[in-house]
């Protein structure tokens, strides 16, 4: 697309061309030829400027609602001779559009990095697209804009919320009574060997088995899981009639899950009436929070109301399940009493 300068050049060219044809004056034909050549040269240089530039988009690490994340664009000029100037990059993340300029010259063979700070407004899928790469180079006659087609959908986890631990709850007391531990379940009889998961204490590594199987194996003791929790999230619309309350519940569920996993006390997770999933490693937790990020309220079952899950149904572990607390709050209930609330 021509810029104002380009439009002026075209207008001047038309004027001089009209005068040239009107008068058959070769001086004007020369001027017209030069103006047209400049326009062509501008197009060629603009093409050369972009031709050998490659870029790669880095979408950052974990995305959480309400937190900023850095998206980086790695640029490389693969041209052996010509530097690249004056590019801009338009990034669209959801409804948010930002432009970054390549302010410095990018020499032949050189690479650079441009960064955008993007704040995800809510959980769920966020489309991040490098919408266009543009340039006014070299003379500002033409605004060259190339659709890059680069982009992806990133999954935004629910926001981290501050919650209150109800100290009177037995859950927190048990932990405090045992003092600081690296991981629950390191005592008792040896039950089996299992694969290493992030967070396992190094001293539990079974080196002989690890050497034989060529991956890390740790010892599993009978005490493991005794003080753990089963986290359960219900999506029944009858339970969560207010969407903001549901969002808060998801945020609390994700935050609790992370915190309990760090404490080594998260055993299983479940959504609605499904079979609980064991959480042994970080990827299990990621999978659970990924599901939370995509979760929507569901219609209540037409049959009888879903029975509340008993502690026995999750293998005797303590069951934390989330319930509305008042008109806006959410509580994680343990044995009918709030263990944490937000």
């Amino acid at each position, binding site marked *: 697309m021509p810029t104002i300068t380009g439009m002026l050049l075209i207008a001047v060219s038309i004027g001089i061309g009209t005068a040239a044809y009107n008068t058959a004056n*070769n001086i004007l034909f020369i001027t017209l030829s030069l103006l047209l*050549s400049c326009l062509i040269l501008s197009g060629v240089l603009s093409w050369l400027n972009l031709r050998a530039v490659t870029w790669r988009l880095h979408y950052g690490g974990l995305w959480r609602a309400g937190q900023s994340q850095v998206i980086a664009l790695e640029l490389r000029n*693969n041209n052996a001779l010509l530097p690249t100037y004056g590019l801009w990059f338009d990034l669209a993340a959801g409804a948010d559009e930002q432009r970054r300029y390549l302010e410095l010259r990018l020499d032949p063979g050189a690479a650079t990095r441009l960064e955008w700070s993007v704040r995800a407004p809510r959980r769920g899928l966020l489309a991040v697209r490098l919408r266009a790469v543009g340039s006014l*180079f070299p003379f500002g006659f033409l605004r060259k804009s190339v659709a890059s087609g680069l982009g992806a959908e990133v999954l935004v986890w629910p926001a981290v919320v501050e919650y209150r631990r109800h100290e009177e709850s037995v859950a927190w007391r048990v932990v405090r009574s045992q003092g600081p531990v690296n991981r629950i379940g390191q005592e008792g009889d040896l039950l089996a060997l299992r694969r290493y998961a992030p967070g396992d204490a190094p001293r539990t590594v079974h080196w002989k088995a690890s050497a034989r199987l060529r991956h890390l194996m740790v010892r599993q003791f009978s005490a493991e899981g005794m003080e753990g929790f089963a986290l359960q999230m219900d999506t029944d619309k009858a339970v969560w009639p207010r969407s903001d309350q549901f969002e808060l519940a998801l945020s609390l569920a994700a935050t609790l899950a992370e915190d309990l996993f760090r404490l080594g006390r998260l055993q299983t997770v479940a959504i609605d009436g499904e079979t609980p999933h064991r959480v042994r490693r970080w990827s299990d937790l990621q999978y659970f929070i990924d599901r939370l990020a995509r979760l929507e309220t569901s219609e209540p079952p037409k049959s009888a109301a879903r029975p509340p899950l008993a502690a026995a149904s999750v293998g005797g572990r303590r069951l934390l399940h989330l319930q509305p607390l008042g008109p806006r709050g959410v509580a994680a209930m343990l044995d009918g009493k709030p263990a944490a609330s937000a």
Partner: protein
Amino acid sequence: MANPRPQLSPIELQQLRWFLGGLIGLVSAWSVFYMEVDAILALGGITLTVPFFTLYPRFSLAVPAFVHRLAFPLIVTIFALDLWGNREPLPAMIRLDLMLLGYRCCSPRGPREDLQIILLALFLVVVTGVFTVSPAFVVQILFFTGAALGLLFAVTLSTSRAGGLAAHATGWERVRWPELFRRLRAAADLRVVAMAGGLFCGVVLLSALLFLALPRFEVSNDFFIDRQLTKSSRTGFSENILFGEVNKIAQDSGMAFAVDVSDPTAVPASLYWRMLVLDEYSGQGFRASAGLLRSFAPASDKAVAHAGPGRASPDRTIWTIYYQPGVSRYLPLLGGFGRLYFGEPQALAQSPALRIAALSSEPAKMVGYRVEGMDGNGALRDPLFARDHRLPAWRSAPSRMFSNEETGPARSGETGEEPEKQPSFLDLTGVAAGDLAKLRVWVSEIGGTGAGGPDFARRAGAWLQARHPYSLDSTTPPGEGDVLVRWLGSRQPGHCELFAGGMVLLARAAGHPVRLVTGFKGGVWNPTSASITVRNSDAHAWCEIWDEEKGVWVRVDATPGSLLTPPEVPEVLTHAGSRMVQDAGWSARLDGLRVFWYRRIVNFDQTAQLELVRGTKDHLLALVRELREHVETGGRKLVAWFDQPWDFPRLLVAAASGGLLVAGLGLWHRYGRSRWLAWRSLRLASQRQEPVRREASHWLLKLQNRSAALGATSAPGLVAIRERLLRLRFGSRESWAPPLEVFAEARRQLRLLRPLKRRKANRR
């Protein structure tokens, strides 16, 4: 990776823009010096202020804000007053442009103001080019293009630095030029500079191609800027010439016109370029009488082609004359002509009797015209004057007798009205009786009064040359009476005007009709452009005397060093380049360049374009024909060779040729293709369609298909080569093994699979 060369900061870019803007403004403003526009005040102002503010930009920031607010209204007011007072739109617009340009160059600028400078400067450069049609326009427009592109480039960089905002960098006015240019040199990459130079040459080449290729059709319009300026003659070729004026023109060595001749062997030995015929002697010089001027037909309508007066020479030679501005509105011609063509439509006034032609006004720019059937033998037929001259009335009242082929004669006695004043080819009324007596004495001394005009002219010319040497630095003796008679009576040296004037007085005193002609004599051959260059220093005056016997006006050149009259026997002509004085040196080369400019650029029109297309087409067709003939001849020879009986030597030759072909293909496949691949790979390193990766993919597929078919996928050699090929296909370049070696290994592995294939085939 850090950039090793420094980069200009926004402040430095702003300073560079300031410098380039000032330079463009100054140089384009100076181009107005070439035009005759009264803009000395604006030009002087720009010449003084723009360099000062460009070098010391801090002063531009010191100008109070109210001055900037008042500047534009003030400039527009001056323009309105100028237009109202002078009634000349174009000069007023040029002055307006100069004022705006000067103001813009001296006030702080953003990108928009830089753009304004470029547009204002472009207007000046183009207008100057259209007016002057000078080759210097090429230099100007190329400089302007380069500088303007540089400025726009700096603006684009500044804009991208400012994040898309046209922000002014602060502190830019504290500029240290040597430091800036050092930084600029450090920031510039030699390769990029060379490439920019190459691209600029490419632009020039592309412009030339576009210039040649742009379709030409004319939509003529009377309103054009070159007609918006009035211009006065810079030289003395007008209808009233005082003694010494032609001599003054001859002091100037500038080019008056250049001549292209289609047939250089047809150039006459003596070239007399007639411009003006003068008949009336004023005592101080000669002038065209009112009667003589009436012989001009009214100027024709504007047209490209004009028919010449009466019968034209059968000569087919085409003369193309590039007539410089500022010489005269009368066109230099050798004599009568058949047809005359201009590059642009022109109104032409002709005097068929005098064989001279004039434009309606003195051209403000170079005028190119082509003349066909031009007669340059020095004798001009005038049958009507011959008829009238024989009438008794002419003898009694010679001044009343003159004919005009175009307008019709106003002969005495034909109408009852007061006869109009006629040309006075015998008139000596301006000469006092005493001087007339002296003339008659000299005429009798010369002798030959009873002879024809040319005979008398030869005698008189010899008499004059015997008494007066030639000198450009001539003086007439002081005293009473007519100045020309005083000079005739003396032994003082004289220049062409005195010799021609003296001849006119003597011939008229002897009773021979005679007239004075001014124009140019001769010219030099420019070998650079293969054309004739006629300079102002060739300005000349001579006479034409009436030859009653033949009914023609015969050229008489009494100036020493010239042939008095044209030779009776036609000369055997040779190439003008071998006969004429050769013009050498840089000045001649520049003139040659100028002629090239006129010939190939300024006079390039639809006809020339069609000729170019036809020429190119003919050339290409000839090339294709030649190539086809070569191929056909070669094919016939090959067939004939194969048709001959086969013997041992021929078999040997055939086998050797076949072997060479096979070897060549094998070598190419073995070495050439790989090297070609490597070269292409380097060139396309940045692209996904990299040849090495494609080649690796090709080998991977081949290996996979072959080994799967033979059930040999797990052979150690195959596994290893597959890994190396996969790395070439998908890995980073840094992790590659030498591609040529990998492909050679893949080929070897495929070859190793052949026995397996054979065994499998045998089992079947």
